[in-house]
C-alpha cells in the first residue's frame, strides 16, 4: 500500500506544503502521513480518505466540501484529554506531528453509524418539527422527549476538563487597517504604507496571497511576468516596511463602534503544544482611523439531489487542493457549474491526471467561448438530476433542461460552482443591508465607500485581476491621503473602475435543480434541505429572518457562508418574489466562532479579578492569620493560635479586646483628604449631620444619604486644621463615595473652592482597642500626653510614634471599648503592627480580625450591615442626626411619607430565650404562633453572632414597628435553610455598655 496515493508529484504552485517535513497523524485510530503545511483535510484527501463525518440531523455520510474555514461538513473532534476540542473544520487544522483527530456524531463508527436510521424518519424531521410534534402529553417534554432529543442531536463533546492553555489580550492602534491579505489587500496595504501611514494587514490564513496562493489565474501568468508576480514582489516589500505590521492567522471577527475591531490571532493553534511562554491565542482590539476591506468572496454550492455525498466539492476547493497542496481529490471528475469561473479548473484537472468525464453547465443561453476547454464532453443546458453512491460518489445522472434522455456518467468527484459571494459580513455588522445584484447574482455591499472605510477587490464586485489591482492601489492611496488630513478626495477614479469593470463569471442566476429524488441540501451543517425552505414558505413564513430561524438555515458554526444565498433563492421562488426584495439576513459578530478562553484572556483562576492586599498583608500571613475575601480585598479574618478552631479564635480575640487590648488592620477604610476654604460648607451639604462647627482636632461620626433619602454610608470626619479635613468611609463604599464626592464637587457645586484627593493607598490604619489600649499607646507615642483629659473620646491629633513615624491619632471606637485609630504611612503599617505586639505583650495584646470586629460591633450595637440600601437614618435609630434646616443631599426626599411611616422595619436587637439557640443573617421574624408566610413577615435578621461577652447568641434585626415592641417575644424562622424556629425577645440593639462608659474612659 503506497503512502499518500493521491499526492501528486511537485506542482508549480505548491506553496503550502514542505515535502522535506513529513508528518505522522492519526484519524479515527488509523495512522497516516502528510507534510508540514497540509491541513488535516488536504492530508486526508492525499491519503484517499473522503468519508470524514456524519451530518447533524440525519447522520448522513459526509466528506470535505471546501478548502477553507467555511467548511460545513468535515467537522472533527481534535485532541484528547483536556486538550480535546469538538467541531473543528478539518480544513482549518494545520497538521502537526502526533495530531489525533476523530469523527464525531457517529456511533459505533463512522462507517457504520446506528443513528443514520434517522434518515428513515426524515419525513417527520423536517424544519420546525419540534414545534409540531412531541407536544403531548405536556409534561413528557421535560422528562422524556427533551432528554432523548438532546442526546440524539448535537455534534462533538466537551472534555469537561480545565483548559490547560493560556490566552491573552492586546491592544493595537493604526492609521489604516487592511482586512484581507489577498491580492487586493496586499496592493492596498502597500499603497497606503507608501504614503507613510501606519498600516496593519490582517488575514485569517497562515499564508497570505489569497489568489496567488489559490492559483486562480492561469499557470502561465505566474511563471512569466504578469500582475500576479507583481503581487509576490509587493508582498515581499511589505514585509520590510517599518510602518507595516502583517498579522497572519488573525481573523477579524467584529467591527465595533469608533472603528474598534476584535481580532483573534492564533498564536500557537498550529503547534501540538504552545511554546513555553507563548499564549495559545491572543485577542487583539485594534483601533483604526481608516479601514480597507478586502475580504474577498467565497464560492457557493448548487442545490441538487444528494449534493452532500463525499466527493461533492466546490470547484475552487478542488483547484486549491491540486495547485497548493498537490493533492488529487479524485480520479474521475464531473464539473457542474452556472458560471465561467470553472473553465480554468479543467486544465488543473487534466494536469493532475484526473479524467474530466463531463463539463456540465446549467446555463442554456450562454455567450461564453468553450473552445479553450480541453474536455471532450461539454454539456450546456444540462443539470445534475441525481448523485449515486452513499459513502462516496460513484456516478451522476444528468438531465437536459429542455427535456430529453438522461445520461449516467461514472465519477468519484463532482466539482460544483454556484457562483461567488462577496464577504459582506463585517459591513452588515455595522448596519449595512447588502444589495442584490442581478448582473453578478450575489449580494454586494450597500455602500462600498464611507468616510472612514473603503472596499476593494472582489468584495467591491470586481472580477478581473487587473481591475482588482488597479482599484486596490487607488484605495490605498486614498486611505493614505485621508490620514494626512486631506478630506476632499474625489472617488471618481474608483467609480470609473467599478462601472467599467470586466465581468468574468457571467452568472445568469441558476441555483437549484427541481427534483423529487433524494435530498437536495441547502445548509449542509444543519441538514436543511430545499424542501424545508419550501415548507416554511407554505406555512406562511415570509421574512427571510423568520425562515432562517424556523428552518435553522445559516445558524450553524459556518453561518451559512456556502448556503445562505441558495436558501434565499429557493425562498424567492417559493414566494414568487425577486431576490432583491427577499433580501438577506443580517450578520452579527463574531464572523467565525471565537473560543471563550480567548475572551477571558488572563482573567481566569486567581487572576479573574484583581486581588487587593493591605499594607499589613505579609505581616498577617507571617502571624498565621487567615484571610477572607471582602469585595476585592483580602482581609485578615481571624488569628488562630495553638490549633484553635475559628470559633475559638474569634471568642478569644473578642475577650482579649473586652478585657485587655487588641488591634485590628482597618487599612481598607476609604480615606479622603479634603482641603480648601469651602471645605466645611461642602461637608455640611454631603452629610446629613452638621459639620460647620466641628472644631480643629476633633472627629465626628458622619452619616451620608443618597439623594432619594436612603442611607449611603457612615464614616468619620476629622478636622486636622482650619481648612483641612480627613474623611473615612466604610471599605465597601470607598470607591462610590469618592466618585460621589467628585460629582458633588465638579457638577453640583463647582463654585465651592475645595480640593479632594483619594488618599486610601497612602495610609495604613490600625484600630487599637481595649481597657489597656491607653497604656500601650503611651509606650509608642514619642511626646504626647495620652491621658483622658488631653486625649478624650473623639479627640484627634497629628503626632509621631516609634521615634519619628508620622501618625494621625484619632480617639474613636467601633468596638465599644476605649479605642484609638492610628493612621501611619502605609509602608510602615507592618512596623507598627510588629511594635504593638512587642510593646503590648505584657498587657496581653493580640491581633484580631474582621470576624471578631463584627462580633464586637454587634455587641455594641453599631450598625453596619444594616446599611443595606433600603434603610433610612430613622430606621437605623440615627434619625436624630439629620439636621432639620440645612440643605443636604437626601434631605427633601428622606421626608417622604413612605420613608417616615410608623410601621417601617426599624433596627432592634434580638436575644434568644435559650442563649445556645443560633440563627443566621437573613432569617425572618414572625409573631410567635403564626405561620411563616409572607403576610406574617415582620422583618429579618441583619447581623448575628455568638457573643462571648454575653454568653449568648445575639442579633440585630429590622423589625416592623420594632421600637414599640421592645420586650416582645417573637419567632425567628429560617425555612430556606430548614432550621427550626428560635424564640427570642426583642431588645435594644445596644447589648453592651449602654452608657458608653468604657468608650469614654
Amino acid at each position, binding site marked *: 500500500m503506497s503512502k499518500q496515493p493521491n499526492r501528486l508529484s511537485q506542482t508549480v504552485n505548491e506553496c503550502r506544503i514542505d515535502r522535506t517535513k513529513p508528518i505522522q497523524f492519526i484519524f479515527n485510530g488509523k495512522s497516516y502521513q502528510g507534510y508540514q503545511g497540509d491541513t488535516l483535510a488536504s492530508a486526508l484527501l492525499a491519503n484517499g480518505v473522503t468519508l470524514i463525518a456524519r451530518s447533524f440531523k440525519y447522520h448522513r455520510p459526509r466528506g470535505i466540501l471546501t478548502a477553507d474555514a467555511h467548511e460545513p461538513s468535515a467537522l472533527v473532534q481534535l485532541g484528547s484529554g483536556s486538550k480535546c476540542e469538538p467541531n473543528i473544520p478539518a480544513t482549518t487544522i494545520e497538521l502537526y506531528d502526533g495530531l489525533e483527530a476523530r469523527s464525531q456524531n457517529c456511533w459505533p463508527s463512522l462507517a457504520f453509524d446506528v443513528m443514520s436510521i434517522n434518515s428513515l424518519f426524515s419525513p417527520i424531521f423536517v424544519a420546525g418539527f419540534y414545534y409540531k410534534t412531541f407536544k403531548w402529553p405536556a409534561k413528557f417534554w421535560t422528562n422524556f422527549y427533551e432528554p432523548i432529543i438532546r442526546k440524539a442531536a448535537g455534534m462533538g463533546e466537551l472534555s469537561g476538563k480545565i483548559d490547560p492553555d493560556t490566552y491573552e489580550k492586546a491592544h493595537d492602534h493604526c492609521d489604516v487597517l487592511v482586512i484581507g491579505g489577498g491580492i487586493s489587500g496586499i496592493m492596498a496595504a502597500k499603497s497606503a504604507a507608501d504614503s507613510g501611514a501606519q498600516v496593519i494587514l490582517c488575514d485569517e490564513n497562515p499564508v497570505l496571497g489569497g489568489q496567488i496562493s489559490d492559483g486562480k489565474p492561469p499557470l502561465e501568468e505566474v511563471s512569466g511576468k504578469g500582475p500576479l508576480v507583481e503581487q509576490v514582489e509587493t508582498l515581499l516589500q511589505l514585509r520590510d516596511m517599518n510602518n507595516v505590521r502583517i498579522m497572519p492567522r488573525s481573523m477579524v471577527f467584529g467591527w465595533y463602534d469608533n472603528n*474598534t475591531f476584535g481580532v483573534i490571532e492564533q498564536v500557537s493553534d498550529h503547534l501540538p503544544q504552545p511554546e513555553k511562554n507563548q499564549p495559545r491565542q491572543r485577542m487583539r482590539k485594534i483601533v483604526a482611523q481608516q479601514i480597507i476591506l478586502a475580504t474577498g468572496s467565497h464560492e457557493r454550492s448548487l442545490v441538487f439531489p444528494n449534493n452532500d455525498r463525499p466527493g461533492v466539492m466546490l470547484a475552487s476547493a478542488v483547484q486549491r487542493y491540486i495547485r497548493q497542496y498537490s493533492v488529487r481529490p479524485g480520479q474521475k471528475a464531473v464539473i457542474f457549474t452556472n458560471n465561467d469561473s470553472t473553465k480554468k479548473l479543467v486544465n488543473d484537472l487534466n494536469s493532475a491526471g484526473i479524467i474530466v468525464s463531463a463539463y456540465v453547465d446549467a446555463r442554456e443561453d450562454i455567450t461564453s467561448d468553450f473552445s479553450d476547454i480541453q474536455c471532450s464532453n461539454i454539456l450546456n443546458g444540462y443539470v445534475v438530476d441525481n448523485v449515486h453512491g452513499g459513502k462516496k460518489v460513484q456516478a451522476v445522472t444528468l438531465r437536459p433542461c429542455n427535456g430529453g434522455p438522461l445520461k449516467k456518467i461514472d465519477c468519484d468527484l463532482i466539482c460544483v460552482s454556484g457562483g461567488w459571494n462577496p464577504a459582506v459580513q463585517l459591513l452588515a455588522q455595522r448596519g449595512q443591508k447588502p444589495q442584490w445584484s442581478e448582473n453578478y447574482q450575489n449580494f454586494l455591499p450597500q455602500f462600498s465607500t464611507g468616510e472612514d472605510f473603503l472596499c476593494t477587490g472582489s468584495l467591491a464586485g470586481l472580477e478581473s485581476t487587473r481591475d482588482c489591482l488597479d482599484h486596490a492601489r487607488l484605495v490605498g492611496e486614498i486611505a493614505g491621503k485621508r490620514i494626512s488630513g486631506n478630506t476632499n478626495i474625489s472617488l471618481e477614479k474608483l467609480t470609473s473602475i467599478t462601472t467599467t469593470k470586466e465581468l468574468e463569471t457571467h452568472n445568469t442566476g441558476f441555483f437549484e435543480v427541481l427534483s423529487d429524488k433524494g435530498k437536495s441540501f441547502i445548509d449542509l451543517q444543519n441538514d436543511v434541505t430545499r424542501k424545508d425552505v419550501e415548507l416554511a414558505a407554505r406555512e406562511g413564513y415570509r421574512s427571510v429572518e423568520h425562515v432562517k430561524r424556523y428552518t435553522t438555515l445559516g445558524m450553524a458554526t459556518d453561518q451559512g457562508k456556502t448556503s445562505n444565498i441558495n436558501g434565499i433563492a429557493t425562498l424567492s421562488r417559493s414566494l414568487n418574489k425577486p431576490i432583491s426584495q427577499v433580501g438577506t439576513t443580517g450578520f452579527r459578530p463574531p464572523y467565525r466562532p471565537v473560543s471563550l478562553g480567548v475572551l477571558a484572556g488572563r482573567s481566569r483562576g486567581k487572576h479573574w479579578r484583581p486581588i487587593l492586599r493591605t499594607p499589613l498583608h505579609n505581616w498577617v500571613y507571617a502571624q498565621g492569620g487567615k484571610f477572607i475575601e471582602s469585595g476585592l480585598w483580602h482581609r485578615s479574618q481571624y488569628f488562630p493560635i495553638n490549633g484553635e478552631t475559628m470559633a475559638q479564635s474569634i471568642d478569644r480575640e473578642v475577650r482579649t479586646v473586652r478585657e485587655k487590648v487588641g488591634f485590628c488592620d482597618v487599612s481598607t477604610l476609604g480615606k479622603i483628604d479634603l482641603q480648601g476654604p469651602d471645605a466645611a460648607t461642602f461637608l455640611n451639604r454631603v452629610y446629613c449631620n452638621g459639620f460647620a462647627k466641628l472644631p480643629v482636632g476633633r472627629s465626628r461620626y458622619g452619616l451620608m444619604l443618597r439623594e432619594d433619602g436612603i442611607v449611603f454610608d457612615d464614616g468619620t470626619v476629622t478636622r486636622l486644621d482650619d481648612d483641612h479635613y480627613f474623611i473615612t468611609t466604610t471599605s465597601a463604599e470607598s470607591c462610590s463615595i469618592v466618585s460621589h464626592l467628585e460629582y458633588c464637587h465638579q457638577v453640583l457645586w463647582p463654585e465651592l473652592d475645595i480640593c479632594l484627593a483619594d488618599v486610601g493607598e497612602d495610609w495604613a490604619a490600625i484600630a487599637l482597642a481595649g481597657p489597656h489600649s491607653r497604656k500601650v499607646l503611651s509606650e509608642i507615642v514619642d511626646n504626647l500626653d495620652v491621658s483622658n483629659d488631653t486625649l478624650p473620646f473623639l479627640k484627634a491629633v497629628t503626632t509621631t510614634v516609634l521615634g519619628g513615624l508620622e501618625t494621625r491619632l484619632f480617639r474613636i471606637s467601633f468596638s465599644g471599648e476605649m479605642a484609638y485609630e492610628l493612621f501611619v504611612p502605609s509602608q510602615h503599617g507592618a512596623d507598627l503592627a510588629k511594635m504593638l505586639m512587642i510593646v503590648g505583650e505584657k498587657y496581653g495584646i493580640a491581633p484580631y480580625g474582621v470576624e471578631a470586629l463584627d462580633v464586637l460591633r454587634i455587641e455594641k450595637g453599631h450598625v453596619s450591615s444594616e446599611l443595606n440600601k433600603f434603610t433610612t437614618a430613622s430606621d437605623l435609630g440615627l434619625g436624630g442626626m439629620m439636621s432639620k434646616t440645612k440643605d443636604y443631599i437626601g434631605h427633601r*426626599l428622606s421626608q417622604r411619607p413612605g420613608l417616615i411611616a410608623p410601621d417601617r422595619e426599624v433596627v432592634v436587637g434580638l436575644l434568644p430565650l435559650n442563649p445556645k439557640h443560633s440563627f443566621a443573617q437573613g432569617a425572618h421574624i414572625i409573631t410567635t404562633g403564626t405561620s411563616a408566610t409572607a403576610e406574617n413577615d415582620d422583618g429579618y435578621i441583619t447581623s448575628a453572632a455568638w457573643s462571648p461577652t454575653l454568653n449568648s447568641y445575639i442579633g440585630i434585626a429590622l423589625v416592623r414597628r420594632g421600637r414599640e415592641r421592645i420586650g416582645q417575644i417573637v419567632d425567628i424562622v429560617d425555612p430556606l435553610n430548614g432550621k427550626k424556629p428560635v424564640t427570642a425577645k426583642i431588645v435594644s440593639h445596644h447589648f453592651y455598655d449602654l452608657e458608653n462608659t468604657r468608650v469614654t474612659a
Partner: protein
Amino acid sequence: MRIPCPLCGERPLEEFTYRGDAKVKRPDHDAPIEDWVGYVYVRDNPKGDHQEHWRHSGGCGSWLTVNRNTVSHIINSVEEARQTEESRISEKTQEKKLA
C-alpha cells in the same frame, strides 16, 4: 466605544463609568416635592441625541458632559461637566440681569 476626554484625549469605554442624564438639575432646597421626585426618578428616553454624564474613572477622574446619539452611538461633543455647569450658571445670571 471611544470617548474623547478633553484632558486625556480619546480613550476606550473601559476607562469610563456612566451615570445618566445630564440635563436634570438639582432643584432649590425649597422647591416643590414634585421637582425633587422628578430630579431623582423621572427621565426622558430620547431616540437620538442625549446629554449624559460620564466619569473618566480609569483616567483623570473628571466628570464629563457627553452629547451622544443613542441610535448611531456617535458622540457629538464632550466637555468637562464643571464647564457645562459654569456656563449654565452664567447664562442664568445673564437671564436674570436681562429680566
